């Protein structure tokens, strides 16, 4: 990977474009933003094809000393790379999604999105703890402004809530990071990954990180900022919030908490499982009674993210790989679902579910895409949602049959709330005059839906393209966790001496 500093370039292009957008009129600003994000996506695809599966853990590494202990240290492993690809993939779609609906201060808006792209990619490629922290917390600023300036009627309350929650965690994490750096004497993430912190220290480091990551995830009960933020955010803001920002929490779990604090992670497994179980059931039931489309999908996101945390803390290959696929899948599908809301919101300017109905009559193409993403959201096999859910729950079952049972009820409740939503919006008699007047998808909307749909099916039918680059990283984490991993409750035991030999042989085969 010599020569082209691809990661720096991916950060630089949107940054330059962002500055440019600040000084441009609406039309050229849109075009510049689209061109920059498309270019970044092209680079991301290039990186994906150039990634050497089975090669070095960290690739595309760049390093330059800055002032003090700051380092410009970039690099990706498979997991980070896939998340960068996801961010770069969603970005041009977000720009397109705001093409017509955003009319005020377009230049600033585009600049904010481009800065957001810089920061998101930065979070995933940073190899220096301090650099990571800056990006990780910095993402608040553009998101905060997007909600605060271009949001709905109650945007200030939502922005305030978003800010307050994330602030709480970040202070604690900063303290923990300082302690880590003093203990280990380095800010380099690859080194820290193999550093053995004393177990007592791990406990409180884990808790401090947890405070930050749990909010970002978001996990129950610190999830209540998410529905408000989504409801108030403009369509593209919701797409990127659900699509990428929610993945930062789980990335934090996988990158920092699990490999750096393995003892504490094992110790707090019950906490993660408990909160995840509650979240799946609780937020699914809440989603069932929502009358606001965006709130419903926001609550469903919390339920899906709970599957991610549960899968990660299964501590085995299936659980973690499944969680990663859920992250990627949810990134695509929830962005698509929020865009589904955006499409009809642009036409009728309401998110009230009951205001719609019968869209299958006048918007058949829309109905088809919405159906696909609904099915992906409820994990229908053949879509990306299934692969992720299935693997993470299969891994979870090995760790705890209770947690697996509780989290698998999500497939029932998820079907209930999503199909109930779909029925109220798309099916039924087309009676209301203003709904009748809604035209079907325009070419721009087609251009957004088609790639999202293609990726959803691709990941469902042939997920190997996505799993292969991440496999080695997951194996590394699993190996790191193996010494502290508690035995699951579902283990096989031979009852009769006669069957013991066979039983153990198969047992060994079934466990990582």
């Amino acid at each position: 990977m010599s020569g082209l500093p691809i990661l720096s370039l991916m950060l630089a292009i949107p940054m330059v474009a962002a500055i440019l957008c600040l000084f441009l009129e609406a039309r050229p600003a849109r075009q510049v933003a689209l061109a920059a994000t498309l270019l970044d996506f092209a680079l991301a695809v290039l990186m994906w094809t150039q990634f050497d599966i089975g090669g070095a853990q960290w690739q595309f590494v760049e390093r330059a000393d800055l002032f003090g202990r700051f380092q410009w240290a970039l690099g990706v492993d498979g997991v980070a790379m896939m998340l960068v690809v996801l961010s770069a993939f969603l970005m041009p779609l977000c720009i397109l999604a705001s093409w017509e609906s955003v009319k005020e201060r377009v230049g600033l808006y585009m600049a904010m999105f481009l800065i957001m792209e810089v920061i998101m990619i930065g979070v995933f490629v940073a190899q220096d703890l301090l650099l990571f922290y800056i990006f990780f917390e910095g993402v608040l600023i553009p998101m905060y402004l997007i909600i605060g300036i271009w949001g709905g009627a109650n945007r200030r309350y939502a922005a305030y809530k978003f800010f307050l929650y994330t602030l709480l965690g970040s202070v604690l994490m900063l303290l923990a990071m300082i302690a880590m750096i003093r203990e280990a004497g380095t800010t380099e993430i690859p080194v820290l990954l193999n550093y053995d912190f004393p177990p007592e220290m791990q406990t409180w480091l884990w808790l401090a990180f947890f405070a930050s990551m749990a909010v970002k995830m978001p996990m129950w009960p610190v999830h209540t900022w998410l529905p408000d933020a989504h409801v108030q955010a403009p369509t593209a803001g919701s797409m990127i919030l659900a699509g990428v920002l929610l993945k930062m929490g789980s990335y934090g779990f996988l990158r920092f908490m699990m490999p750096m604090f393995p003892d504490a992670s094992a110790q707090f497994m019950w906490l993660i499982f408990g909160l995840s179980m509650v979240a799946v059931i609780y937020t699914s039931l809440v989603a069932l009674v929502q009358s606001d489309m965006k709130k419903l999908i926001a609550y469903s996101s919390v339920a899906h993210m709970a599957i991610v945390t549960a899968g990660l803390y299964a501590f085995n290959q299936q659980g973690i790989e499944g969680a990663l696929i859920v992250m990627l899948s949810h990134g695509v599908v929830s962005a698509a679902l929020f865009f589904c809301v955006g499409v009809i919101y642009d036409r009728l300017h309401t998110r009230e579910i009951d205001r719609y109905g019968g869209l299958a009559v006048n918007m058949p193409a829309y109905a088809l895409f919405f159906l696909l993403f609904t099915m992906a959201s409820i994990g229908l096999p053949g879509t990306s949602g299934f692969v992720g859910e299935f693997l993470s729950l299969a891994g979870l079952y090995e760790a705890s049959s209770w947690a697996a049972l509780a989290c698998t009820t999500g497939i029932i409740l998820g079907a209930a709330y999503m199909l109930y939503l779909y029925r109220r919006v798309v099916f039924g008699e087309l009676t209301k005059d203003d709904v009748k007047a809604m035209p079907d998808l325009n070419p721009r909307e087609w251009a957004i839906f088609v790639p999202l749909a293609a990726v959803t099916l691709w990941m469902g039918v042939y997920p190997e393209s996505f799993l292969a680059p991440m496999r080695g990283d997951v194996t590394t984490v699993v190996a790191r966790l193996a010494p502290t991993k508690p035995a699951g409750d579902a283990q096989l035991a031979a009852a009769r001496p006669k069957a013991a030999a066979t039983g153990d042989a198969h047992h060994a085969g079934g466990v990582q």
Partner: protein
Amino acid sequence: MIQAIVFLPLLAALVAGLGQRVIGNVPSKIITTGALFASCALSWPIFLSFVAGTGEASVTPVLHWVQSGALQFNWELRVDTLTAVMLVVVTTVSALVHLYSWGYMAEDPDQPRFFAYLSLFTFAMLMLVTANNLVQMFFGWEGVGLASYLLIGFWYKKPSANAAAIKAFVVNRVGDLGFMLGIFGTFLVFGTVSIPAILDAAPGMAGTTIGFLGMRLDTMTVLCLLLFIGAMGKSAQLGLHTWLPDAMEGPTPVSALIHAATMVTAGVFMVCRLSPMFEAAPVALGVVTFVGAATCLFAATVGTTQWDIKRVIAYSTCSQLGYMFFAAGVGAYGAAMFHLFTHAFFKALLFLGAGSVIHAMHHEQDMRYYGALRKHIPLTYWAMMAGTLAITGVGIAGVAGFAGFYSKDGILEAAFASGGGGVIAFWVGIFAALLTSFYSWRLVFLTFHGKPRWEQSEHIQHAVHDDHGHGHDDHAHHHQAHGDGTAGYHPHESPLSMLIPLVVLSLGAVFAGILFHHQFIYPEEGAAFWKGSLFFDEHLMHAAHEVPLWVKWMPFTVMAIGLFLAWNSYIRDTSLPAKFVAQFKLLHRFLYNKWYFDELYDILFVKPAFAIGRFFWKRGDEGTIDRFGPDGAAALVEGGTRLAVRLQSGYVYGYAFVMLLGLVGLASWAMVNFL
């Protein structure tokens, strides 16, 4: 070849579904129907090669799917005897249903979508029956669920159709929860989800235990019961059956294909496919027997009281599936599959026949408004007659009989021969056979015999008005003038596209039993036919053939009693049913309301789910978390009233932003200086 069988329907579905506006109505129908007939034509040679004993089991790889540690599964197409049986059932009924829909759906504006869904369903079903691993089976399982959801809700403007579609999907998902946990457990125990590998290792697992929800239980019992919960959902067994009668909201060809012949038998197929696993779990088999017998009885009792022609057949399906399950439960998997095979033909025939009646009667489905249709739609009458003779199992032991005679008697004899719980299942099955005969003949007599009772039907009244171009003012005079109960309406026989499938399926209903019963259930020939694709117990099948003569004659006897009772109440003295109802009011109400399952579930699950959801939302999120969380924090800092003002003025928003910038600055400063 197998690739063509499986993927032609998918291709056709995509072309017809996505390209309907480009290629138009008729080409969409030609493509889908053509693809299905091609699949069907390719499937029969495979099946016949297995019948002839020359067929070889094979697995055709298609595409890599998932590899995660030891958990690996690929897209593969498995063909063995069991698959071959399902292939012909699925493709034959599907092809005929496609053809039938040309006539039945002729006036629908949305035909390409309908045909695309039908083909999509067929693809998913074929993926299910060709699965070589549990996950691909689950793919097909959910795929048919999706198609079923779409087709039940095909007339999406009808609220009842939408409700039925969601109910079908969600109730099935309850079963899928079991199926999924079963797959997880199987993977944990066996280290693989490949079906042949699991079946090889299953006997060795007998006697081991596994932890499950804090308990330590027999491994195979837990796994089989979890998987069986999935089968119960898909095959509408007692407890998870509530979606099937409601699924009749879908167009009738759908009921014939999905909710009678193919999809609902997937559970039976699954148990047979995994029969070596179930053989290692006697307790689970006992549960399968019990659930099957209970469903068989329950659905038959309800079927005797319903008025909607499709609902009668739906409960009949549910009941016949119960037979298949208790056959599997007593270890007679060959008999279960045989009944699945014959049932596919005669039940699809009954549904399509009912569709033809409904078509002739202008969408009236209530049998109270039928009567005397024999002369008006004779071909439909004879087709329904063939179906009824098949389902009631008419035949002479040792001589010949209709399809159901061989398969149902095979099940009952095997149940009797297996002893123990099987004998109880036998008696339950005998009683259900009596009820089957009664409700089936009741349907025929109410529909085709007696006097016309059409004039009370709103559908017929509408039809008459439309035909005669009368306004609403004089409709009262109009049908009173006739006085013969016909309201002046003339039912017409269905078009050829609908009659051909009826004729073909009638042939199946008549001959499917006599032609193939040797292969399916005879001890030696059965073993040679199945070739280990399911667990075939030769001893049991021997014993089944040597049951006492009274056992062999029992089904025929109760069939005759049922026929007599139906004739007595619906032809000889038509006032009898009303008298009976008056006599046994409570019993009738209990049966007519389907044992009150829907009401019970509504109280137990549906209403609480919404109530709890609302509680969590209002009292949990808003009343507790927000109140003591962000709102409380704000109040603490600012004081309640001032906060509201500031939120309104946008002050806090700017303030918070400055804080954020400060935070990042502070962080940088702290790091630079302290480290």
